[in-house]
């Protein structure tokens, strides 16, 4: 894993993907995005990210299916759950995530969460 490895933002909501990308890139963190679990799985195999910000309820392949697909392939990746649901903490435990960023979050919460869970600014 290198410093320029991106943070992978997985969310079916395009507005959220763009907003998160804008915030993290302004902080100098590289970002890759995916619109659902299947898309994310493909991107993970192409370029291993240093952190995954994962929405849970998505079409095609949801957060749980994505997490178990990762396990099946023996891919160990730090995942932070990013959801608006009240059950965020429980869901994070279910899929073995290392943390939670509950929606709605502002710039400060997002940046501090990403920093805390391991992604430092890249080059």
């Amino acid at each position, binding site marked *: 894993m290198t410093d320029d490895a991106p943070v992978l933002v997985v969310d079916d909501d395009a*507005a*959220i993907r763009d907003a998160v990308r*804008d915030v993290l890139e*302004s902080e100098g963190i590289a970002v890759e995005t995916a619109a659902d679990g299947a898309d994310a799985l493909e991107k993970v195999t192409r370029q291993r990210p240093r952190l995954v910000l994962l929405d849970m309820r998505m079409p095609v392949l949801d957060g749980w299916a994505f997490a178990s697909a990762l396990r099946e392939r023996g891919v160990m990746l730090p995942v932070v759950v990013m959801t*608006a649901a*009240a059950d965020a903490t429980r869901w994070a435990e279910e899929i073995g995530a290392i943390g939670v960023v509950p*929606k709605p*979050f502002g*710039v400060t919460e997002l940046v501090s969460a990403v920093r805390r869970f391991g992604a430092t600014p890249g080059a």
Partner: protein
Amino acid sequence: MTAQDFLSAISQLIYLALFVISSVRLARLHSLVALDTFLFFGTIAILLLLGDLTGLLGFSDEPWVGVVSWIGLAALPFLLLRLAHDFQPRPTWVMVAGSATFVVVAGLGAVVPQPWPNPVVLALVVDFVAFGSYASFAFLQAAGKTRAGTQRRMQAVALGSGLIAAIIALAGVSLAFAEPPEWIALTSQVLSLAAVTSYFVGFAPPPILQRGWQEPAIRSALATAPELVRLADPHDIGAEIAAAALEATGAEGSAVGLWDEAAGVLQFRQPSGELQSVASGQAISGRAFALQRPIITGRAERDAPDRADEYRRSGIRAIVSAPITSGDRQLGVLTVYALRPPVFSDDAVAVVRMLAEQAALVLRSQELLREAAQVRTMAEMTRLKDDFLSVVAHDVRTPLTTILINSELLENALGRDERNGQRAGALRVEAERLKALVDNYLDIVSVEAGREARLEPVDLIQVAREALEGMPDQASHVELTGAQAVIGMFDAARLRQLVQNLVGNAVKYSDSTDPVELRIWQEDGQAQLTVRDHGIGIPDEDLPLLFERFHRGSNTDDRRYRGLGLGLYICRLVAEEHGGTIDVTSKVGEGTTFRVTLPLASTSLAEVAND
């Protein structure tokens, strides 16, 4: 003592017992039936006592003894006829013939010296047998028109009277013999015992027998009780029970009045469907309800003058009314109306009371079923509301994320000194307010629904410290005092929020120079937490409503002090969820102190954690 003597002694004892019972009943009831029963058994008792005493005391030769005995004997058929007449009215000529015969026979015996010639004695025997059989027949006829216990008792009386007639007939037969054979005396002793036993069963049946007679009638009348529970309108149930009472008592009318708590009256549904109300204590029904015991009257007009006209018009003379009561729930009354007073008043009361008890059971069951259905509906509605709120909250939070982030980015890009940057800042502030509102809503829903409380052994001071770490801007104004760990079974996340809400308020409503004091200690096995500020204080009129949903102090100008009115409500929910309390003391201009008291719940666990 021979077998005959033994039988005779038993018969006499039973007759005497019946005399005592009928005396007691007459003293209590003052009814015609009671009087005639008393006279009948009183006469028999006099005859028996005279027979025994004269033999014992040796004055059998006294002439008055013979005269009194004879008059008593002559009176017996007439008294039996009177009883039959009370039960079931006889034609006038029969009664006249009975009285005339009594007078003639009694006079004859008093005047004409004994022994009489056989034909005269035979004529007397025929007379006795005729009246005895007639009375027996009359009782049987009356039995056919009654129900349950009353019917059985009439049948028993009819049997007793028939047996008496048979004994007298047997005495007549013995005249044919110069030396009457032994079997005649023995048979008449056996018949005599059977007769007195029948009378006993008829006039003073043991309660167990009475209940046995009444139960089948009541059970068959209420065979549909389980179905009744399903009727939605209690008045429909009342109508069914009233019909059952009519069937079981053989009376002419019946009604169920249901207690209307709101109106404070008994409501009787008329055939037209209209409700007629009777106040508690009014008429017979109202009195039975007010006194909570069965009431019987054989003279309705006199005993309920307020309804006399009504009774006169309908010819109702007797009323039995019993309260329908289940435990301490007074549900109504069951009332039965009859054109004639009941023959055996205790039977009538017992039947009506048992039916009223059954009615109470059915009505109460229906009430409970209805309440259960309401509770189910309420629970379902609460669940729907919670689900709805959760979904709405989720759907609001997602777009809110985009608004929050973009307004913040915009604010930073334009600069806070620029007018447009300030506009973006206003957007961000409002989005944050909306976020807080949604978060609070979800907290309330989950606490109110009792979900997700995670009780663990936790140090309350540690919880407070974490809470302050989560609000760095406000925490700098707070002085935390807590000497020793206060460990209890707490939901750390909820209590963090409680501390943040209280501290947030305290800082918000204080000058930035005045410190907010947060103290945590243990006292009397309970965790104590106080948050004290020297801020603007809370007006007295706001204190009672302070912990209610959406309440905000009247001195909290919305532009200066932003808030939703949910924070303290959530604090109260959290405190109560832990089995604790929250209260407040405040003075305007001086400051406010909130005090939270939480039980440590499991002390043993807390001790373990202390080690």
